[in-house]
């Protein structure tokens, strides 16, 4: 299956390094979330993946092939970098038809794909200049999907979508990955990534600050635990060498995996009333990792 592999990807503009030695692999059958504050270098990295920007060093391969060497890129990699980057005077249907013709696909695919992304016939015939951002995103996804690619590269695909639209996008990408497709999507919104991604690559100031599966990252966030006898639980955990702290609502936050915490409780014969990964764990990690960013949180 197709994997997307970035290797030591680096780009600088006049001495300012925007993307700094980024290496990661987006696996087939998984959704990889590319997470970072605005201006962290996500879009530049994605442009380098599809040959729109030349890296200073390093490169990206898709199933071992550089993007430029793909004979018919649209049939292998679906790309949406900026849904607003379309000629405002063309209709949605026309833009999709141009993609269909460029990829050499049968004409019926246009109507099929419009239906798949939920653009009505009437809206498809309107000029894109009058589209809402959400409709543009749907059209952008349609252009990415029409060639039935095995890899999707999407920059902030949920921007401008309403909650129902975000749900739709999530289901679409989930289903695509479950069928064996590779998805790389970027976002500066943690929640979006948290609900959809299997793997997360977090970047700040052009560097990867953390990467791994979502489960691994969440584990790093620690465990929230309650027992009938909170005092005994706290003692047992401390005796096992674990760092604990009381949270505001009286539960214990433990700097360890739920498996470890559960094990300690069992050995001490303590009945637990709650055992789970700490809430908003990824958010804490995200804020912690991106806090010292000089441009953190500001618009690109």
């Amino acid at each position, binding site marked *: 299956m197709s994997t997307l592999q970035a290797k030591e990807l680096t780009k600088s503009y006049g001495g300012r390094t925007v993307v700094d030695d980024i290496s990661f692999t987006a696996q087939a059958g998984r959704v990889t979330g590319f997470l970072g504050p605005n201006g962290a270098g996500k879009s530049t990295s994605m442009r380098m993946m599809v040959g*729109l*920007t030349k890296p200073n060093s390093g490169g990206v391969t898709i*199933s071992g092939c550089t993007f430029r060497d793909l*004979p018919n890129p649209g*049939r292998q990699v679906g790309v949406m970098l900026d849904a607003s980057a379309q000629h405002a005077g063309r209709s949605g249907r026309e833009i999709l038809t141009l*993609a269909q*013709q460029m990829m050499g696909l049968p004409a019926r695919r246009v109507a*099929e794909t419009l239906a798949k992304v939920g653009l009505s016939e009437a809206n498809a015939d309107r000029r894109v200049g009058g589209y809402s951002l959400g409709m543009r995103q749907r059209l952008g996804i349609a252009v990415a999907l029409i060639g*039935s690619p095995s890899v999707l590269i999407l920059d902030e695909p949920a921007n401008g979508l309403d909650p129902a639209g975000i749900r739709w996008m999530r289901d679409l990408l989930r289903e695509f990955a479950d069928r064996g497709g590779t998805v790389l999507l970027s976002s500066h919104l943690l929640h979006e990534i948290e609900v959809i991604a299997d793997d997360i690559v977090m970047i700040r100031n052009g560097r990867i600050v953390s990467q791994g599966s979502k489960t691994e990252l969440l584990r790093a966030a620690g465990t929230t635990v309650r027992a009938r006898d909170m005092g005994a639980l706290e003692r047992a955990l401390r005796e096992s060498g674990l760092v604990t702290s009381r949270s505001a609502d009286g539960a214990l936050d433990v700097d360890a995996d739920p498996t470890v915490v559960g094990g300690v409780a069992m050995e001490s014969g303590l009945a637990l009333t709650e055992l789970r990964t700490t809430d908003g764990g990824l958010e804490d990690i995200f804020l912690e990792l991106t806090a010292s960013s000089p441009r953190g949180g500001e618009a690109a």
Partner: protein
Amino acid sequence: MTTIERAPVREQGPVQEVSLARVSRVELRKMFDTRSGFWLMASIVIAALVSTVATILFAPDADLTYYTFAKAIGFPMTVILPIIAILSITGEWTQRSGLTTFTLVPHRNRVILAKVIASVFVGVAAMLLALVVGVAGNLVGTAITGTELVWDVSVAHFLLIVLGSLVCLLTGTTLGILFRSSSVALVAYFVFSLVLPTLWGFLTASQDRFLDWQPWLDSNYTQAPLFDGSITGDQWAHVAVTTTIWLLIPALIGLGLVTKSEVK
């Protein structure tokens, strides 16, 4: 969602490369598929018809020959064709559609070449249209005035006019590649075609040495014999040199920039 595909996503077998012919067809379609593009194309037809009617109405009866019609129709063509060529190129940057175009066809030279092919196709079609409208104008015009029908444009002369018009059109392509912005390229085109000839007029009037340089540097001057149909040996050399200086070299520089530049 109306359809849910359950078939596994798979890598597509041997996929055929996107051929130059296919890119050219799509680029040709893109020249017509917006309202502005459509009216720009329509303006070729409208200009040809208006010029013909104006010639019948206002040209002295004695001048009512085929060449008069050809000149009258040809002039607006040499203005409109380069604009079409410019917008075909610069739209990718000004309208930012290049983000999609250059990811579907990562070889930018191939996209530019396809645009040149599509523009030349439009140029040749426009010249054939001019030919037909001119013939009709000449037949109708002389019938109205009762003057004699004069066919004073040979096939060779027509081909020279086509060549001259294509050089004009490709000047637009070159400016588009070089500046990659519709407004800048359009301004540059009008400076090139309107301001430069006036400047040459001043220069040649003030100093004689400019008269020696003009045939090797002033492309408007060297192209005139193409439209007259009177071009001779030396003048071919002049056209070749000015076309190289003003068209070929800037186009190659522009292509280098296009391949290197970042598409945002």
